[in-house]
């Protein structure tokens, strides 16, 4: 419907000046993510106690002015351990999700544009990879080569490449059927141009949303691996490892087991909230 008429009222919503519309839920999600990102960067400067130091006399100590989140099963300060854990959880997940999505999306677009045997070969290979249960795969790799941060990052990204590939390929196949791709093809354009300039700009929105979901999955899988003792190794700990270490405090309702769980939940939920409420460009610019 064309808007050919003079506008009657200009009751504008807040946050529309810059040409984007961003709602409050998305903003909350974004601020929690930024909070954790800042914590990850500046953790060594703000932790009240060294991570490995046994500071409290009691184990599974309650929340107190000295120990804001109580103490863990050895009497170490829980707040310090969570602040430091953010580095591992956020850092490893971010690295893994970047690798997974970049390779998956590039391969997916190539498969969609090239079609034919390359598409079949890539799809079947990644389907095969997809058929291996992810936790089991992680367990086997870590058990075989031992746990280190690079191994964790690579394992997590390999596990999530097939999903990113499938998603990007499905989107790109739809775009590939459009007339503007046909026009570009009979102009004589190369595959690289097609995927970079014609397809990518049209799928970048959903791909970013997918990146967010995949980030959440990776955080959860990393926490799961750490919970099983195969993730980040002591004395350092990511949030999953913190939950596992302190699982014995569950019967006492210790803050030590609740706090890292809440940290995982807050990060994953706010990523989800953000990707569901990404800023939207306003198309109505007739003013």
């Amino acid at each position, binding site marked *: 419907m064309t808007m050919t008429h003079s506008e009657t009222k200009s009751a504008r919503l807040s946050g529309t000046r810059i040409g984007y519309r961003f709602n409050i839920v998305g903003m909350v999600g974004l601020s929690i993510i930024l909070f954790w990102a800042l914590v990850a960067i500046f953790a060594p400067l703000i932790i009240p106690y060294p991570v490995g130091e046994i500071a409290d006399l009691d184990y599974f100590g309650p929340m107190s002015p000295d120990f804001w989140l109580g103490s863990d099963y050895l009497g170490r300060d829980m707040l310090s351990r969570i602040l430091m854990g953010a580095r591992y959880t956020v850092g490893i997940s971010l690295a893994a999700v970047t690798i997974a999505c970049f390779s998956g999306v590039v391969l997916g677009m190539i498969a969609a544009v090239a079609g034919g045997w390359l598409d079949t070969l890539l799809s079947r290979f990644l389907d095969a990879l997809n058929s291996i249960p992810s936790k089991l795969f992680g367990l086997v790799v870590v058990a075989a080569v031992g746990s280190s941060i690079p191994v964790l990052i690579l394992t997590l990204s390999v596990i999530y490449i097939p999903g990113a590939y499938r998603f990007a390929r499905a989107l790109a196949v739809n775009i590939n059927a459009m007339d503007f791709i046909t026009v570009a093809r009979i102009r004589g354009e190369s595959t690289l141009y097609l995927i970079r300039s014609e397809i990518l700009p049209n799928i970048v929105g959903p791909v970013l949303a997918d990146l967010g979901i995949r980030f959440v999955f990776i955080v959860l899988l990393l926490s799961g691996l750490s919970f099983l003792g195969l993730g980040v190794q002591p004395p350092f700990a990511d949030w999953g490892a913190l939950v596992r270490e302190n699982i014995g405090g569950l019967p006492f309702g210790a803050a030590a087991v609740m706090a890292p769980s809440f940290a995982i939940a807050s990060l994953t939920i706010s990523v989800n909230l953000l990707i569901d409420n990404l800023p*939207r460009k*306003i198309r109505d610019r007739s003013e």
Partner: protein
Amino acid sequence: MGNLVEIRDLKVEATTDSGRRVEIINGVSFDIAEGEIVALIGESGSGKTTIALTLMGYARPGCRISGGSVSVAGKDMMTLSEKQRARVRGTEVTYVPQSAAAAFNPAATIMDQVIEVTRIHGLMAADEARSRAVDLFRALSLPEPETIGSRYPHQVSGGQLQRLSAAMALIGDPNLVIFDEPTTALDVTTQIEVLRAFKSVMKKGGIAGVYVSHDLAVVAQIADRIIVLKGGEVQEVGTTEEILSNAKHPYTRELLSAFEPKPREAADTAETAPAPLLKIENLVAGYGPSQTDGLPLVRAVEDVSLNVEKGRNLGIIGESGCGKSTLARAIAGILPAAVGKIVFDGRELGRSARERTRDQLREMQIVFQYADTALNPAKSVEDILARPLTFYHGMNAKARNARIDELLDMVRLPRNLRHRRPGELSGGQKQRVNFARALAADPKLILCDEITSALDTVVAAAVIELLKELQRELGLSYIFISHDLSVVEAICDEIVVMYGGKKVEDITRAKVKTPHHPYSKLLFSSVPKLDPTWLDGLEQDPELVRAYCRR
């Protein structure tokens, strides 16, 4: 007793995504008497469908009926509760949508869907509803009325499905039926039968109707009165005869004149000795795996030969599914031909675009029907036009910039449009950008695949005028593919009629009124004329119709 429908000072407003409100209907008033068919006509965006929907008390998401009154059979649709409105919809006021194919559920039989209305409203027993539906099928002259109901929607043709959706609307015995462009998606030969069926059923039942369309000639056949809309306001109201013969409002006259494009002045044959540009010999193209004889399983184009001369235009005409678009794709190399020779400018071209040189690709450009899908929605107009300039001509930023301005001038678009994206342009503007991209390559031949079909009559006429002007200035040749005879007639020197993948007739301008082949005769006689008596007076040989129409 007043009129069946009384609309007074209707206002509808929409909220845009920036929260701004715009009035899309500004104070429209009109009446519809019992048994009268009123047409709402206007270009897209004129608010005709919005008005029609308010008759059911409905506004599309984001829109709101903000003022005025709509009374149908004494009930004010504004003041009814949603529940009461639901009771009126389907029984008193019903709706026939534009695309019947999208309105039917592909997973249920037609009969179940047609009688669904009676079940929802508890109007009659299922058996009674079924026998009533069969009566309606017969009245709408559908084939095999007893058994057609047990089929699924994909098992009947588009024209039949459109009539079935009318049966769905009529089964609740309504006082008022809203037809929303019901024949726009149909071929002319099919459209006639559908229009006839609608007209006879409506007249017999004395049912009032609202017919929404942008095609004045179609409306002339069915409506008693015409309301011309533009920009959400009534421009002119009158009986069909008045509007057609004695239009007062300038916009109505524009609509009328757009319907009859000025014929192209015959090219000066003495001056331009015919130099062949494109020669197609015995081309076969199709889909599916190759058979043992090297031909594809489904042959959409069979053994077609054509000639296009420099500076001349060739029209290809035929109904949907006749292979005209496949032919264009085969010529452009998108779908490599299985057999046949394509000689362009003295050199034989490879069958697939990959086998052609960059210059060969540059000299032959194709413009697609839907500018919506032919322009990358993520790129600005500037970027879209810049790419062929860089790719084919290797221009630097400054030369490119100047050339983009020239191209925009050529297609009569304001230069400040270059930063917009396709989604921010109107249909006609998009088609111009689409065309400018083809011009950017400096081609010798442009294949136009139904480029005006998605546009309103007035806009389409403007695009055709533009094409003619550009031809005079740049010495282009066009292959113009369309199902609309009047468009092809307006621009082409020679017309090829296709049917079932074969070329059935070659017609030159001089002979355009007297085609020889029976299918050409049928096709040409099926084009609606601006004469309200045309449909009733039209006599087509039933043998011919049976032979060529898959109704």
